[in-house]
């Protein structure tokens, strides 16, 4: 999502009030809740009285919050601060805990937890709020969850040492047992939990040395949720059934920014099973006994919209306006180094390029949904809680309860790709408003239809880049002028104050202003036009377009100067740039130094996003009907220490397919302010017959782990575009490549 490193200002602001990555954050404690040993964090003042709530869960906002529970049967449950939308963060956290605790992954379960940012705050983003995004789940959890696992292990050893009257140094742990080799005694963890709970957690818990790791770095295809995701038993939000639950669908304005003026519910209410039609702030909802009735009622509903504040332009008109803006000298200065204009004026040769990137939909397979249930004075919220603190606050206010009267139930979701991290909590707010409109008399599941989801905005913002690159007589880059035009994602959200500087949204300029290449004379301008079309982070965010521009332009420079594209990049990258090694590895594994096979054409790109480095070599062929087929991708990655190699591999395979999908076929076009695509027939997501083979090569590293969920997306598009140039002699600057 967004780059954790750019949250440094936030770190400073919050360091004074909030526990960050300090010893205090790891003031670990333990307690018995029900019959399970809970190991987690507690406030110093409250060590003695961790509250125990009904159902074995600590109360919301409690001074104690668990990271791990160990039950009498030895099953270990990890309470995940990180939401799992398919990127396998749960398996990652299970691995970190199991490594330190010495338990088999088969005996580890993971449950999402939310509602206590004090202890579940994202440490990669300052620790003040809970968030899954910016590929930060492993950076945030790397120490927290290993330390929790180690603390639990030491507690269990202490308990065994007391029982056996031996010194703790003689004890070891393996496979869920404490072992005293000298006397050949073993105790399963479950037999020690009652004895361990009252013991003090050691102040400083030593983590295993990397040489002793048995799970971290081990290449295995095991996944804790593989079976449930292969037999239909994995539950998602859409699968929630509560007694008496009603199902709602919603009609939004077809044009972005429109509001309901009036509605006629006669036909909708005539649909058998429809029980209510209610207007809420963002639309009109049909509430029914079952999903089909809600869908039919939604189709029959007549709404008149007030379009006075709505977008009325077409996306073509927006492109024309943005291109005109990009040609102007205006814009805010995002980066100024050297004398770009002066150098360009004297350049022997100039490359001028204008790029057009459309709006993109996340199009996750599970359309947005949420379940709201008020039970007495408690508000229950079930769903894809990617930014739970915001949801807790917003929904509590609507329901008229205090935030600590909210129970957040974190569900796994059918994809996300950024769409479930919305500052104004769209689907949750709507569901709560609907439940309130029927006086909370029944649980409500709001299920957006596919059409509501695809037409619901929060798109990757449409962008235009205009770049002029000067080349001197020797073929060296001599001046780079770059104007980016696109809507800001953060403007108007709480992130604006935290992360935007001088009116520039870093999620539009990331990947350009931090370019590692030796470009001494560069001038980058940013213009953020406004529109009622809501925009959002879309897997790898600004890098979706900035990497494309930078990496195709480097290819143009190589062509214009007769240089090899890999050699040119290596010549322009500093000696310590981590791009160098992944680029060299991908080139080597792809056989870059050898001629490409007959009928194949090759392109390369390398890009850093969210602290991880990925190089991709794409091979394409021409099809009989004059098209292009992407055949093979060779990808090299450096994401620091690799925790689960096969998850890295899977994310790179999937990220490559995801980025390729956008490059080839995805576009949300607007006519009269309304999207023309409403389902997968018109919004072309990559299918199996267009999926290339993807070979993944991971660089060994001892650097702290960085995320892997997004970093494969940026380089695939430009690598394919560069290969297409080899095949056709044409530069692809208007995306997607396939016209409608």
């Amino acid at each position, binding site marked *: 999502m967004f780059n954790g490193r750019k949250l440094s200002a936030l770190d400073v602001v919050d360091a004074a009030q909030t526990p960050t990555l300090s010893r205090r954050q790891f003031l670990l404690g333990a307690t018995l809740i029900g019959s399970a040993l809970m190991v987690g964090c507690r406030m110093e003042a409250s060590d003695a009285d961790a509250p125990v709530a009904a159902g074995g869960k600590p109360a919301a906002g409690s001074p104690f919050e668990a990271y791990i529970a160990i039950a009498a049967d030895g099953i270990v449950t990890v309470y995940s601060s990180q939401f799992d939308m398919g990127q396998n963060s749960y398996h990652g956290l299970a691995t970190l805990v199991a490594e330190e605790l010495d338990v088999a992954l088969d005996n580890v379960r993971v449950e999402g937890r939310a509602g206590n940012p004090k202890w579940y705050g994202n440490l990669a983003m300052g620790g003040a709020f809970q968030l899954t995004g910016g590929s930060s789940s492993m950076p945030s959890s790397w120490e927290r969850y290993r330390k929790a696992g180690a603390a639990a292990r030491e507690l269990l050893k202490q308990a065994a040492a007391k029982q056996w009257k031996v010194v703790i140094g003689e004890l070891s742990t393996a496979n869920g047992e404490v072992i005293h080799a000298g006397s050949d005694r073993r105790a399963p963890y479950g037999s020690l939990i009652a004895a361990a709970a009252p013991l003090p957690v050691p102040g400083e818990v030593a983590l295993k040395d990397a040489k002793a790791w048995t799970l971290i770095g081990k290449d295995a295809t095991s996944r804790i949720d593989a079976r449930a995701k292969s037999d*239909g038993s994995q539950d998602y939000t*859409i*699968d929630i059934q509560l007694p008496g639950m009603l199902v709602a669908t919603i009609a939004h304005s077809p044009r972005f920014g429109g509001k309901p003026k009036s509605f006629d519910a006669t036909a909708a209410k005539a649909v058998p099973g429809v029980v209510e039609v209610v207007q809420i702030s963002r639309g009109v909802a049909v509430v029914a006994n079952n999903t089909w009735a809600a869908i039919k009622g939604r189709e029959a509903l007549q709404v008149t919209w007030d379009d006075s504040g709505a977008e009325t332009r077409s996306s073509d008109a927006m492109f024309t306006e943005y291109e005109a803006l990009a040609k102007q000298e205006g814009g805010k200065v995002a980066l100024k180094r050297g004398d770009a204009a002066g150098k360009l004026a004297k350049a022997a040769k100039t490359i001028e390029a204008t790029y057009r990137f459309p709006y993109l939909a996340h199009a996750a397979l599970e359309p947005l949904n949420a379940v709201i249930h008020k039970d007495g004075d408690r508000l229950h919220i079930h769903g894809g809680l990617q930014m739970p603190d915001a949801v807790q606050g917003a929904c509590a206010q609507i329901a008229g309860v205090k935030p600590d009267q909210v129970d957040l139930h974190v569900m796994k979701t059918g994809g996300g790709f950024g769409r479930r991290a919305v500052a104004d909590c769209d689907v949750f707010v709507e569901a709560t408003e609907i439940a309130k409109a029927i006086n909370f008399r029944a649980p409500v599941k709001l299920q957006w239809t*596919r059409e509501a989801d695809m037409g619901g905005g929060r798109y990757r913002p449409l962008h235009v880049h205009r770049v002029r690159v000067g080349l001197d007589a020797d073929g060296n880059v001599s001046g780079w002028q770059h104007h980016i035009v696109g809507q800001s994602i953060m403007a108007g959200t709480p992130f604006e104050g935290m992360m935007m500087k001088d009116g520039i949204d870093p999620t539009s300029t990331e990947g350009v202003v931090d370019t590692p290449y030796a470009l001494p004379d560069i001038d980058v301008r940013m213009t953020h036009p406004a529109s009622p079309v809501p925009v959002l982070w879309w897997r790898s965010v600004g890098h979706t377009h900035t990497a494309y521009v930078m990496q195709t332009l480097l290819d143009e420079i190589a062509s214009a100067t007769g240089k090899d594209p890999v050699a040119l990049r290596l010549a322009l990258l500093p000696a310590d740039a981590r791009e160098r090694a992944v680029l060299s590895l991908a080139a080597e594994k792809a056989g870059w130094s050898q001629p490409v096979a007959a009928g194949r054409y090759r392109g390369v790109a390398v890009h850093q996003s969210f602290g991880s480095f990925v190089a991709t070599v794409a091979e394409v062929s021409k099809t009989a009907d004059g098209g292009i087929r992407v055949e093979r991708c060779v990808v090299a990655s450096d994401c620091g220490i690799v925790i689960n190699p096969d998850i890295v591999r899977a994310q790179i395979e999937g990220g490559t397919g995801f980025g390729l999908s956008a490059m080839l076929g995805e576009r949300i076009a607007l006519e009269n302010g309304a999207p023309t695509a409403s389902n997968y027939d018109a919004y072309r*997501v990559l299918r199996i017959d267009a999926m290339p083979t993807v070979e993944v090569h991971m660089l060994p590293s001892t650097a702290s782990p960085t995320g892997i969920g997004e970093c494969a997306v940026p380089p695939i598009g430009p690598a394919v575009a560069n290969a297409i140039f080899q095949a056709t002699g044409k530069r692809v600057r208007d995306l997607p490549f396939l016209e409608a």
Partner: protein
Amino acid sequence: MAFELTINGKAVPVDAPDDMPLLWVLRDIAGLTGTKYGCGMAQCGACTVHVAGQPIRSCVTPASALVGQPITTIEGAGATGPVAKAVQDAWVAGAVAQCGYCQSGQIMSAIALLDTNRSPSDDDIDAAMAGNLCRCATYQRIRAAIKAAATALA
């Protein structure tokens, strides 16, 4: 209207409008939520089930038209024989799923493919599976798992 369906070998009484797609009968009435809603117009394949052994998109098939025909969903697939077991085991062993939401439909399409073709080529797999979207783009592992299942069944 009231009618009876045969789902995973069991008689299931249904009281639903005659245009209600099988998908919503399965999910909201029969309580079988492994079959997923993705598009409602036979574009994504997440709702794929078998009717008399043939893969169909349950989101556009009225349930009332299926009286008397055996319906198999992901929940009942494992009991149908060695092909389904081989496919599900290959999905687990190959760590195919990421979010997993589309995988019930993928698996039902893969079982139907292997029921009629025990050694599918890449082209056969593409043709049989192109109607099943995976937004996580797990396609490479889907191909590999289908081949692994075919090998296991040989």
